[in-house]
C-alpha cells in the first residue's frame, strides 16, 4: 500500500446465524486502503468480498454479527450510531452496486436521485444541486445531461444507468468509492468504458477506489494492488504487477492459469483445480483451500495459515513455502 492509511480494517468477522449453523462470511480479515489507491478485491461467489464492502458501510443487516474494527482515518465506523454513520456514507464513503437497475429508484427522475445526495450531505438548494448534477453527468460522459436529468432509470441503457450510479457516488467527492462488480452486468465494450471512467475520475479527483470483482481480467486492466479472497479470508495480497508475475498462493495460481486468453494460442486443456469453493456454513478445519490444493501439507488440515509477508509488500496465507508450478505441469 502507498500513502497514508485511509481505511484500516482489523480482525473483521461477519457471520450470520442460519438453520444450518453459523455462516462465516468474513473471517478475521485485515486490510488497509491508502489515500487515492485503486485496490482490487478478487474472489468467487461466497468468498465474502461483497460482505466485506457492506460491512464498511454498515449495510450487513440486523441479523449479521460483525466484529473487529473498521476505521476511516481515526474514526471507528463499527458500532457507530445510524445518524453518525449517515454522515459518513454517501459523503466520505460511497458505493456503486452491481445492478444499477435495482440500485436506482424506478419512481424518481435521474436528476432527483443525484441532487438528493447534495441536498442531504451538503445542504445545497435544489437549484444549486441541480447545476452540480449537470456537471457531474458531463464528467461521467453522459451526453445531453439536461435532458437525462428529467428521465427515469428505465429510459436509460444499462451502461448509462451505471454512469448515473457512478455520478451519484462521486458527486460529494468522497475519500473512498466502494464498487461491487460495477461492470459485470454490462457488455464488454461498455465494461471497458466504465473501467476507463473509473481510472479517469480517480486521476482527476484523487478518490480511493475499492473494486470488487470475480474477473482477474478486470483486475489486470484497472487496479494498483490486489487482494485475493477465498472463503472469507484474504489469501494473497500484492501490487498488481507483482501478483500476476509471481503469484505465491496456490489459489491465485489456479485462478490465473485456468482463464483462457484471447491473446495466446489455445491450450489442449485449461489447467484446472478440482472441487468447488467450500460451503461457508461448513468450512473445513485448517486452511479452507486445502481440500483443493495441489501443495497440501499435513499442517494445512489442522492449522489455518496467517497472512504473512512473503516479499516486498507481498503477503500470503499459506503454509507451503516452495515454488509453485504444479498446475501447469498437471495439465499437460
Amino acid at each position, binding site marked *: 500500500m502507498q500513502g497514508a492509511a485511509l481505511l484500516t480494517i482489523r480482525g473483521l468477522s461477519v457471520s450470520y446465524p442460519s438453520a444450518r449453523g453459523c455462516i462465516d462470511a468474513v473471517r478475521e480479515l485485515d486490510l488497509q486502503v491508502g489515500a487515492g489507491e485503486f485496490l482490487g478485491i478478487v474472489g468467487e461467489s461466497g468468498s465474502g468480498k461483497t460482505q466485506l464492502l457492506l460491512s464498511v458501510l454498515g449495510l450487513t443487516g440486523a441479523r449479521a454479527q460483525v466484529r473487529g474494527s473498521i476505521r476511516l482515518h481515526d474514526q471507528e465506523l463499527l458500532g457507530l450510531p445510524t445518524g453518525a454513520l449517515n454522515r459518513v456514507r454517501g459523503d466520505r464513503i460511497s458505493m456503486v452496486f452491481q445492478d444499477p437497475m435495482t440500485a436506482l429508484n424506478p419512481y424518481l427522475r435521474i436528476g432527483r436521485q443525484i441532487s438528493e445526495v447534495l441536498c442531504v450531505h451538503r445542504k445545497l438548494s435544489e437549484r444549486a444541486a441541480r447545476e452540480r448534477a449537470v456537471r457531474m453527468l458531463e464528467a461521467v460522459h453522459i451526453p445531453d445531461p439536461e435532458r437525462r436529468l428529467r428521465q427515469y432509470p428505465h429510459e436509460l441503457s444499462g451502461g448509462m444507468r451505471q454512469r448515473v450510479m457512478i455520478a451519484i457516488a462521486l458527486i460529494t467527492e468522497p475519500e473512498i468509492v466502494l464498487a461491487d462488480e460495477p461492470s459485470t452486468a454490462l457488455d*464488454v465494450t461498455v465494461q471497458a468504458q466504465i473501467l476507463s471512467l473509473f481510472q479517469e475520475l480517480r486521476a482527476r479527483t484523487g478518490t480511493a477506489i475499492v473494486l470488487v470483482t470475480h474477473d482477474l*481480467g478486470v*483486475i489486470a486492466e484497472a487496479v494498483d494492488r490486489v487482494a485475493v479472497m477465498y472463503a472469507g479470508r484474504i489469501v494473497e495480497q500484492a501490487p498488481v504487477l507483482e501478483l500476476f508475475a509471481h503469484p505465491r498462493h496456490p489459489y491465485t495460481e489456479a*485462478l490465473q492459469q485456468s482463464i483462457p*486468453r*484471447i491473446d495466446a494460442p489455445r491450450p489442449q486443456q485449461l489447467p484446472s483445480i478440482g472441487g468447488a469453493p467450500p460451503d461457508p456454513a461448513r468450512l473445513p478445519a485448517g486452511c479452507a483451500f486445502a481440500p483443493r490444493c495441489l501443495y497440501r501439507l499435513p499442517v494445512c488440515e489442522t492449522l489455518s495459515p496467517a497472512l504473512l509477508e512473503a516479499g516486498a509488500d507481498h503477503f500470503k496465507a499459506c503454509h507451503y513455502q516452495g515454488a509453485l508450478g504444479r498446475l501447469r505441469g498437471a495439465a499437460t
Partner: protein
Amino acid sequence: MIAAASESGGRLSVRGLHVSYRIAFGGRHTRLPAVHDVAFDLAQGETLGIVGESGSGKSSIARALLRLIPADSGSALFQGTDLLALSGAALQAMRRHLQLIFQDPLAALDPRMSIGEIVAEPLRVFAPQLDAAARRERVLQMLQAVGLGAQHLQRYPHEFSGGQAQRIGIARALIIQPQLVVCDEPLSALDVSIKSQISNLLKDLQRRLRLSLLFISHDLAAVRFSCDRVMVLYLGRIMETASCDALFSAAHHPYTRALLQAAPIPDPVAARARRKLPLEGEIPSPLAAPSGCVFRTRCPLAIERCARELPKLRTVGDSLVACHRAEEVVG
C-alpha cells in the same frame, strides 16, 4: 461408453434466417427485428462460436433453429431436412437430435425431480423401448461421463453447486446422443475455478462424441478455447466469420477489433500495453437501426458510403466480413 453420432449427416446449413418479435411500442403493436439475413454452415464435429453483445441476436438464432420461437423466413437444412419447415410428429422426432445446454444450470433443472429422473427423462420420451434397468445403465454411464456417479442419482438439484448442476444439464442434453447441441452461455453463471472444469468437459465430450456445437457466448476468450470457427454478430447481422485462428490473429471488421480490444486480458503488462480505442456509445435500438451498415454509428472508420450502402459479406484475408473498409482494418 456413449457412442458417437453417426458419420452421415450432422451438418447444418442455415440460409437467409430472419427472426423478429411482436412487441407493443408506443401504444401499438410492431415487430422488433432480432435476426437479419443470417447464413452459416456447421460441419459434423465442428464448434461454431456465436459472439456479440446483448441484443445482437445470438440467442434468437439458436432458439429459432431449435424451433422454440418461430422464424420469419429462411431455411435450416439438417440431414437433408429443413428444420424450419417441420411440424407435428416429424418435428417431435427431430427434437432428439437437437439439444440445448442452458446458461443458468440450476434454473434449468426441475427442483422436484431427482437427478436420476432428470437425466433419464429424455430417454423416457425418445427411447421408450428401453426398460428401467437399461435406462438406469445409460443414466449411470452418462453421469460418469460428466464426472458424477451413482451416489448422485437420488439427490435433488438444490443439493448441487452451479458447476455440478451444469454437469447434470450436460448429461441430460447428451444422453439421447443428439447431433446438434446449442450451448447458450454455458459458462457465464459459473465461478472462475469451475469454468475451466466445465470448458474442459464440454470440449472433451464434443471431441469424443463428434458433436456439432453452437457455442453462444459474450466471452471471447472462452470462444477461442472452445470453438473452431467464430461468427460475430451486431444488431442481428453477421459482421464477420472466420476460423478462430484467423479471427484472433487478424480481425477484419472494426467491430471485431473493438471487441478484442475491450476484452479483459488477465495479464496487467499485456492489458496495459495494448492500444485502446474504446468504442463510444452503445448498441442502438433495433427499432431504429441505422441505415446502411448498422455498426456505422459507433465505427471509427465510418464514411459517407457506410450510411448509404449495406456492406455485403465478402472474403478479405481469411475472413468473411461485412465492411466497406475491411482492407484497412489491422489487428
